């Protein structure tokens, strides 16, 4: 009997860890995405607890190695707008350019994710949590990196540069029915300016 338990124990541990990690991440990711979409800050204590379990070292490391540290609500609860980054320097407007479709796809995904995190200048308030503010600062640092790399890559030398972060808004079905010539609208969400030190 002990022999049988010995041979079955590893697979039981694997099943327990794997299914716990899948369910914890899928449930908490789905729930918090839904809450964020509905702008609700009143979280259910059970889901907060579940999310805390998901952030424990064991589950986090296991999730990273097993790939289960993600949710599965692809394009849910809404297909988001694509984003675009417009870099301006020395009177020229440009955007990061890639040679491969895959690289472009990865970059577009990153820009799309920023839409969810970015705080429009006017909307930023004291109510934002420290984590949100820190994430916003970090995003600004990422955008500064991208601006500098884009200018260097395309050989544009300048003292001042700016980066406009815009959302590409697809007109709704209703708008398209009313206006036959409704087109994708570029909605600037934030503009960051950088001085010469970016070239240092």
């Amino acid at each position: 009997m002990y022999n049988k338990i010995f041979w079955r124990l590893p697979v039981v541990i694997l099943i327990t860890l794997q299914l716990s990690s899948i369910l914890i991440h899928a449930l908490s990711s789905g729930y918090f995405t839904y809450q964020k979409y509905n702008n609700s800050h009143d979280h259910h204590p059970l889901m907060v607890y579940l999310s805390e379990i998901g952030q424990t070292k064991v589950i986090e490391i296991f999730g990273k190695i097993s790939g289960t540290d993600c949710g599965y609500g692809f394009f849910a609860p809404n297909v988001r707008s694509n984003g675009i980054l417009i870099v301006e320097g020395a009177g020229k407007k440009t955007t990061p350019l890639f040679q491969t479709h895959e690289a472009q796809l990865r970059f577009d995904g990153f820009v799309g994710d920023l839409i969810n995190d970015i705080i429009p200048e006017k909307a930023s308030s004291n109510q934002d949590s420290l984590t949100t503010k820190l994430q916003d600062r970090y995003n600004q640092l990422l955008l500064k990196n991208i601006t500098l790399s884009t200018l260097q890559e395309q050989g544009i030398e300048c003292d001042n540069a700016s980066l406009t972060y815009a959302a590409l808004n697809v007109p709704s079905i209703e708008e398209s029915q009313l206006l036959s010539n409704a087109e994708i609208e570029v909605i600037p969400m934030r503009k960051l300016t950088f001085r010469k030190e970016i070239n240092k």
Partner: protein
Amino acid sequence: MKNNSFKAKYWLPFFRVTIAVFSIIHILSFSRDYALFFSGNSFIQADVMDANLRGVAINLFDIHLLLSGTTLAADYYLLSKLAIGVYVFVLFCLAVGLFTRLSTILALLLQVVLLDSIHSFKYGADYFNTILLFYAVWAPLGKHFSIDNHLNFSFRNQVESALQRLFPANIILRIMQIHICIVYGFSGIEKMTGPNWQSGESIWRAVHNDSGFIDFSFFNQFLGSSFFWALAWVTMLLEALYPIMININFTRKFWLIGTIGMHISIVLILGLFHFAAIMIIFNLVTYFFPYVKDKPSQRSISSKQTFISLSNTTL
């Protein structure tokens, strides 16, 4: 179908070859842009990228720091290219079934390290690549149609038979089946909570996002009809009912065809080629190849007939 009758000789080699080939194509697909992701002049500097990680995984920047004082520490891009080269090599070993278990473990670790090094640019296909490589570690992928079968190392054989006893292929397959059911179930239910999915607006948005390979402006003629609403609900029901329908023998093939069709549509509409490919592999590994039936060979039929005639004679 009973657990122990899953056709390991079909799903195991298919899983091994497809996950290895997919992973090679996936990492090499943006090789011409590596400098923008992995070099010292990348879009986001490695130290900035590293700053947002919570320190639970080792990425290339950490390895770079560990190697301080060596040539590799001086050239981050060289280190990255070396890691990618080793990754492709172990994946090739996995594809042909050479030192399969070791190759799979190394492939998984390198994939996690490489993708964590550019974690801001990770997307769904990367997560599913990790998921399938993780399962590949536990499954006896070198059991059929592999070079390992022709190598007779007694130590490797002993370790392999112990691992196969500890982690039987049928149980690994069952976990994979439960996993894919959770994936689609959650995806369908989460979509159902979105008002834009309920109204069909999400499909309209997706086809107009200008990310795919085909110009879908001809879809505009369906404006005013229930076309987008119906397409959205077909997608949501296909996903939400997947855990039930895929496990019923009669509906399995219809749901597989529908799901694979949905992923091909995602390629055309959103251009997510790699994501669709890995999901199709996941579907075929879990719910197609394990259920493939052997055609009765001529020899077995004739031996059966002989048995029947012998029985008749006895009677």
